[in-house]
């Protein structure tokens, strides 16, 4: 059997090493090579995804397992279910797009080390694939933490004026969560040693482990804190706006679009199945945090003057929806969350990249007031911006609508009131997104922008795949749902949650 996942993860890593070894004087070669390697990875991902069997009864496909540190029951184990596969595909799709879009981003800001930026992107891709593929909790943790380093350097070395502060804040916040997760993970190991006599980190052995309820709740908190910071949920979000506004657009896309998904991925992959009782116990708290996040994020976004910060707060609001879906404990809501994760990845990429192109044309300013009337000078750019904005507010027909609708539907089934309140969040989203579009794109052309060029060929090429995917998956979400649904069903079975009966459903969904 071909070790697909290992190959997939190693190809970008090798590419990254080759890039570092290239001479500094050949920046274009480095970029071309980075693009080629990311495209190879994408092709490999597609080939692998085509072999994925949605109806398989195996919990993980393409599974590999080798002993790594037997002294602690740690193995190198990878494998994917539908959720992991979709997120790996998202990462593999966004990386070449980011490379194309960021082709000239670091030419002037990097002390000549252009290759470094692209090497970091490839290293990050490799780590992201491992983190989504890991089926050993220790291995997941290792990549969860190591993944911080490329992003830390991408922000700290290549970012804007506040980069150093933002990078350190990002790293320390993430390490805080990571270290509590480490303590919990060790606790889990100790419990597994006490219960089974042999400590293990194997995911499937840890699922269904009998635990003392108090211990389970404490261990859950360690994992959840790490994921809540990563995602980020209110009130652990303060690093995100700083990181997003200091980072290059491409870095921000990978950070918010893919990396932060590790947080929500972790909740559904680790928190729920390993600590089912604790998850139910804490569900009201999490749902409360998610609701506050939806409104707080949207409200702050409504009052933002900085585009990148606006996107960061808007993402926080969207992460609220995703967490809500996961902790609503219904199949539809959880599937919706997974779709929403993909959708949010795509819409974030569209927003940050178009905004990035726009900012380049205004000397790097990201203040909304510096823009206006862009649709007159650069209609193509304005068009893409409109599309990105609509995708963010979940216009029907786009994939984000599928996700958001399913989350709300699933939440209504169980928590009528929560679902109703959350729906209001969509209204505020529409308000800030449309306000942004109106202020920056319509009206008289801002004097600074006179003579600005429209999007070039490279920029359109970078944005087109996002637009196509958003539309295709929005109109025809079956391919993605087909792989996600079995995985979500398995999670629901593991945590012994059942969807509420049809009576509640027919009352609650109120269609």
């Amino acid at each position, binding site marked *: 059997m071909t070790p697909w996942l290992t190959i997939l993860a190693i190809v970008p890593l090798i590419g990254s090493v080759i890039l570092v070894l290239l001479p500094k004087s050949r920046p274009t070669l480095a970029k071309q090579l980075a693009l080629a390697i990311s495209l190879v990875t994408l092709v490999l991902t597609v080939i692998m995804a085509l072999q994925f069997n949605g109806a398989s009864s195996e919990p993980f496909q393409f599974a590999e397992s080798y002993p790594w540190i*037997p002294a602690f029951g740690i193995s190198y184990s990878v494998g994917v279910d539908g959720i992991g596969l979709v997120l790996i595909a998202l990462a593999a799709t966004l990386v070449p797009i980011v490379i194309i879009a960021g082709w000239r981003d670091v030419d002037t800001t990097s002390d000549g080390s252009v290759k470094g930026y692209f090497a970091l992107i490839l290293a990050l891709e490799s780590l992201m694939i491992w983190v989504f593929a890991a089926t050993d909790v220790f291995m997941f943790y290792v990549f969860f933490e190591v993944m911080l380093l490329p992003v830390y350097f991408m922000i700290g*070395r290549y970012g804007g004026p506040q980069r*150093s502060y933002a990078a350190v804040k990002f790293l320390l916040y993430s390490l805080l969560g990571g270290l509590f997760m480490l303590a919990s993970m060790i606790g889990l190991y100790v419990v597994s040693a006490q219960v089974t006599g042999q400590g293990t980190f194997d995911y499937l052995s840890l699922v269904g482990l009998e635990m003392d309820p108090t211990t389970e709740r404490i261990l859950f908190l360690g994992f959840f804190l790490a994921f809540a910071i990563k995602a980020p949920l209110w009130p652990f979000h303060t690093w995100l706006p700083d990181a997003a506004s200091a980072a290059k657009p491409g870095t921000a896309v990978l950070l918010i679009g893919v990396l932060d998904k590790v947080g929500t991925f972790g909740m559904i992959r680790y928190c729920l199945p390993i600590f089912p009782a604790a998850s139910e116990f804490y569900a009201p708290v999490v749902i409360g945090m998610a609701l506050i996040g939806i409104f707080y994020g949207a409200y702050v976004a409504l009052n933002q003057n900085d585009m990148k910060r606006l996107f960061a707060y808007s993402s926080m609001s969207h992460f609220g929806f995703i967490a809500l879906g996961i902790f609503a404990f219904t199949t539809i809501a959880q599937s919706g969350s997974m779709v929403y994760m993909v959708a949010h990845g795509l819409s974030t990429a569209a927003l940050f990249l178009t905004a990035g192109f726009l900012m380049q044309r205004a000397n790097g300013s990201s203040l909304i007031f510096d823009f206006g009337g862009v649709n007159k000078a650069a209609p193509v750019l304005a068009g893409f911006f409109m599309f990105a904005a609509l995708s963010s507010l979940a216009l029907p027909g786009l994939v984000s609508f599928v996700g958001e609708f399913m989350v709300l539907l699933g939440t209504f089934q169980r928590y009528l009131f929560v679902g109703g309140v959350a729906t209001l969040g969509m209204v505020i989203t529409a308000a800030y997104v449309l306000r942004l579009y109106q202020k920056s794109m319509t009206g008289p052309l801002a004097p600074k922008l006179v003579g600005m060029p429209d999007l070039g060929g490279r920029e359109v090429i970078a944005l087109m795949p996002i637009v196509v995917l958003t539309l295709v998956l929005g109109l025809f979400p079956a391919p993605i749902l087909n792989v996600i649904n079995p995985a979500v069903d398995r999670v629901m079975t593991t945590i012994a949650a059942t969807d509420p009966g049809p009576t509640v459903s027919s009352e609650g969904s109120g269609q």
Partner: protein
Amino acid sequence: MSILAAVSVDVPFTLPIVDYNAIAPLLILLGAGVISVLVEALLPRGSRRFVQLFIVLGSLIASLAWIFTITGVRIVTAEGAIAIDGPALVMQGAILMLAILGALLMAERSVDPSGDVFAARASALPGSEDEKQFTARGYLQTEVWPLFLFAVSGMVLFVSANDLLLMFVALEVMSLPLYLLAGMARRRRLLSQEAALKYFLLGAFSSAFFIYGVALVYGYAASTQLPVIASVLTAKPGQTSLALIAMALILVGLLFKVAAVPFHQWTPDVYQGAPTAVTGFMAATVKIAAFGALMRVLYVAFGGMRWDWVPMMSIIAILTMLVGSIIAISQSDIKRMLAYSSIAQAGFILVGVIAASPAGLAGALFYLIAYGFTTIGAFAVISLVRDESGEATNLSKWAGLGRKSPLVGSIFALFMLGLAGIPLTSGFIGKFSVFAAALASGDTWLVIVAVVASLIAAFFYVRVIVAMFFTESGPQTASVVVPSVFTTIALAAGATVTLVLGILPQPVLELVSNAGLFIR
């Protein structure tokens, strides 16, 4: 035996039984030390360096090779004074390997334009006419080598001493040369001599505590041998007050060497003032030796009083971790920062010691090895970063260094990440091992404090990376000197071990867990 007994009629004397095979590594080093002194006395100045290096590296390698031949030995020898067991052999091996790297650093002569990092004559007063003369004539000294060999011998003995008196002797054999070595920096000599004096006075003070404790133990148990103390403790349950006082005094002496709070005051001054090569050597090896002795005393002699010392040691561990990490944040000198970092690391190792289980012992051993190699590598880098006044240890001079010299910057970043305990470095596996052992022993709160302290510590390690990579280099930025093969080997070894123990730690984890427990 019979002949000797016949000579002395009144006091029957039996020759002690010594397993020379088991203590050969120690004897090789002591012998080499004596020869090294003779070399200083007899050989002409010009040929000393070559001969000394030959003796030092030869004896270290021979001693290390001997240890590999006696890995299975578990024996108490020399009338119960020396215990050669698994943990002792592991620590002796680690000390010797690190000593080889330390010797390489100390042998480096191409980073300082004046030829050497050690003072031309240790006896010349700083700023005196003598000193100027010696410097002008280009004098280079080789007296550090006998001192170095005796210090290593002391450490090798310290981790296997099974008798408190012998342990005291080993402590002094190890410490006295180190006091001298600390005072021998060629540049900033006053700082160096101040460090040596502080180290000596405080060290002598702590030794006095130790020996007072030994005296009280003798009063209690009528013996200074660790297993005898343990058996007296079991024989007289309930009458432990004298033993308790004695144990506290002995621990003061040992915790001083470990650099645990509140016995840590000497560390920053000594780390800063001593020649960087010596600091690196000392930071890595003394930590292992001192923890080895500490664990042997706690487990073998006072294992029965575990419930008395665990709370006390827990408080010390918590203080050590927090004080070390918090004060490190405010340091602007990189050597002082690493000194506080070494204090914090001592706290993490204490977490493993307090677990008082086989897993805790194995974890602490792994941590010590990992820490030793990373630290010696970090100090090797520091010895290379210089400006016209010598080593540039102020953090402001490190700004932009990673952009100026990416390779050395990346290696130092690796060491910082290793000390911070980021996964895929040896420091992470070390932290993981001791935390796992502590949680299994039920010390949940200790682990939570340790986790918080790790985060605080990560901040100042990361700060160095920020300075090196995220700040523009300017005219104040120091330069990296190209070293000779000596430092290059030490640096490469430190970096390799930091990475390999992070990615493939299984062989070393097996080694430390197969080492078993201290022999009784």
